[in-house]
């Protein structure tokens, strides 16, 4: 298995520092965005609407990534997230339509995703099939089954067609939280440096937000808590780090891997359900459009941790929604990235990592020149943004990423010792 090159670089010194400075970095990022917003006079960069759209675009990716996190923490690479997610879109539509409740629909989405996860678990855990191979097959099956099931079950429904089902009830939306939403929105409208940007976030999180979005953010927190603060989570993670060791300590590795992959499928399924019920309030065939893969990338981006995953998913969701809402704003992003790269350059020069500094300075300078010499980014390039960003982050940051040590490796019972 060489799906991911193991980079034995315990730079945990850096990681610990990063963890300590987590809040600082987040605030720094907001400040940088704010600076760019004011410099380029693009208030839409952090308007309440943009952030609300970003949250909606983030949620499905976040759930896919969370699915990936659960599976990979138990040592199973789940590239079948896309298939499980697409199964979830159908499940959400089917169960919502027939029960009348979107929450039952979400459970249905989780269930369908779980069926995809079960297939993956059987193939990879019980039969030791290569994880990527199984994932590819599950994506094929997921897409095929969804298309077929939709044609078979939605064609004759009201609001339905062979490829869609619209008019489904949506999960509750919280319109506003008195005392917070209003002042926050007012503050956001003032376009002050930093304060308004933070206010925008607060306003977006408290105004016209789907309850399901909040549930999803809660799931991220809950996943982090379960995986890192409970004995269940410890056992599950041990299966991803060293299953042989876990086995010698009496952990039923197969069971934990199964549970992890099932939860993984359920998470991806819920992501699909969100897509169908909230992001677009209706099912349509293949509406995941590769978000499962993006979720996987976001998880790697986030170093197999919930916080990082959230940051990764937000980055993708943000750029994707920005591109749809305002192409001019994407142009401002050029400056943002240029500023970020140059900041890293300076940092590296200070640390005397000259080669690394040059590697950052060149693209940074190029982006700056691009920004200064143009007024807009060709629309086509804006659609590439999330993918190019991922490649950049991976190329520049993989050395610092650390996946679970036994991730993707087949494990068989009795192989300890």
């Amino acid at each position, binding site marked *: *298995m*060489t*799906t*991911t*090159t193991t*980079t034995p670089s315990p730079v945990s010194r850096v990681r610990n520092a990063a963890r300590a400075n987590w809040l600082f970095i987040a605030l720094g990022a907001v400040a940088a965005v704010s600076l760019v917003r004011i410099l380029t006079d693009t208030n839409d960069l952090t308007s309440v609407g943009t952030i609300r759209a970003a949250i909606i675009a983030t949620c499905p990716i976040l759930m896919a990534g969370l699915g990936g996190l659960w599976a990979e923490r138990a040592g199973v690479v789940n*590239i079948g997230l896309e298939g499980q997610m697409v199964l979830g879109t159908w499940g959400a539509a089917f169960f919502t339509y027939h029960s009348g409740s979107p929450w039952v629909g979400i459970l249905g989405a989780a269930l369908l995703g779980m069926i995809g996860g079960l*297939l993956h678990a*059987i*193939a990879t855990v019980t*039969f*030791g*099939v*290569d994880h*990527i*191979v*199984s994932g*590819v*097959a*599950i*994506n*094929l*099956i*997921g*897409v*095929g*089954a969804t*298309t*077929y*099931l939709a*044609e*078979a*079950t939605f064609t004759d429904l009201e609001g339905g067609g*062979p490829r869609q089902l619209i008019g489904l009830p949506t999960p509750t939306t919280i319109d506003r939280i008195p005392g917070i939403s209003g002042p926050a929105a007012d503050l956001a409208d003032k376009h002050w440096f930093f304060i308004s940007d933070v206010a925008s976030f607060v306003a977006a999180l408290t105004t016209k937000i789907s309850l399901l979005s909040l549930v999803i953010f809660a799931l991220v927190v809950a996943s982090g808590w379960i995986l890192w603060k409970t004995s269940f989570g410890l056992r599950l993670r041990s299966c991803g780090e060293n299953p042989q060791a876990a086995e010698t300590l009496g952990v039923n590795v197969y069971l934990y891997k199964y549970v992890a992959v099932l939860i993984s499928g359920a998470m991806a399924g819920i992501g699909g359900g969100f897509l169908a019920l909230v992001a677009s309030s209706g099912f349509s065939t293949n509406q995941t459009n*590769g978000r499962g*893969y993006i979720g*996987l*990338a976001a998880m*790697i981006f986030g170093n197999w941790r919930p916080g990082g995953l959230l940051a990764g998913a937000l980055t993708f969701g943000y750029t994707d929604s920005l591109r749809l809402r305002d192409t001019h704003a994407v142009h401002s992003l050029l400056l943002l990235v240029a500023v970020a790269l140059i900041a890293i350059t300076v940092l590296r020069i200070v640390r005397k990592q000259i080669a690394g500094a040059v590697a950052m300075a060149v693209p940074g300078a190029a982006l700056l020149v691009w920004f200064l010499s143009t007024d807009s980014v*060709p629309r*086509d*390039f804006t*659609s*590439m943004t999330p*993918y*190019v960003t*991922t*490649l950049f982050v*991976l*190329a*520049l940051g*993989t*050395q610092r990423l650390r996946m679970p040590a036994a991730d993707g490796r087949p494990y068989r019972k009795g192989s300890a010792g």
Partner: protein
Amino acid sequence: MKSFNPRAIGLALLGPAIAIVASVLVTTLVIAAVGSSPGDFWSTMFDFPKPRSRVDIVNQTAMIYTAAVAAAIGFRMGLFNIGLEGQYTLASYAAAAFAGGAYLSGFANVFVSLLIAVAVGAAWSAIAGILKTTRGVSEVISTIMLNSIAITLVGYLLNKYGVHEGNTVHTTRIDLVSGWTPFENRDGEIWTLVIIAVLAGVGFWVLLNKTRFGFDLRASGQSETVAKASGVNPHRMIITAMALSGGVAGLIWMPALFGKATNFGLGTTFQAGLGFLGIAVALLGRNRPIGMLFGALLFAYLSVKSNDLTFATDVSPSIVQITQGVAVLAVVVAYEVVRRWRARLEQRVVAQELGTATEATA
């Protein structure tokens, strides 16, 4: 084991047999479950194809097979080139644009266009290889990203430099290379460049089994550390294999371009999705030249014949995707099971033949 050992052959056939049974079973169940008639479905699918369908099946098999070979080159050394789709889209566009430019004439134009397809596919794929060796980026993720980038890039280039005609954009039309017409004219022709698939298959087999490079490739696939100790330069091997895989991927659509399409147009002439089919077929055929041939034929047959479903049954053609997916999953599971049996069997055979049943290993 020796090639004429009946038990070994039996074991080798067991995997595909299980897979076929499983996919037939699942397909039948799904059809029955939604209230359609599996009988209608199977009788339509098993109905001997019409002459033009036979031609289509041959042409499609060739393209899917080329894609499978491209995937298998990576798989055999443990590289997952999920990026075939992007590689052949970009390469097909480049080749079609060049051919449309008509800088050369006749055979030379075709030949150089093919070279360009190979070069572009290889270069795009090599990006993932370079990222992996220099930055440690998993090729699975990078090729997925490169797919999306390639497709957007092609759209951009096509819009900017393509021929806008009616509501479509495409590259300049080219002269076709006439093919072979086994039936009536109207039943279509088997494209000349189907030969690419034959060459790809034979070349793959020769490369893998007869050359030092192929040996290194397989060794790297079986154990990276062993290969390295044997003198394989892993970095160079990764980049070479990725480039080779992408280069072959560049050729995937070339038979259709010069046999039928005359131009590259997104959503019109260009056939997307062959890259993913190729990956599936490579898995189905266990990355073996002959296995993949059967896999490609099966997939081509299923998709061509599924066209008839709308006329004869109320089963949607998308059922075929389920059949294909289940076949792939079932075959990998079945092979894993068979592999375990075989390993146990071989150890037993060795022990028996040597009579060293008391020798201890711990």
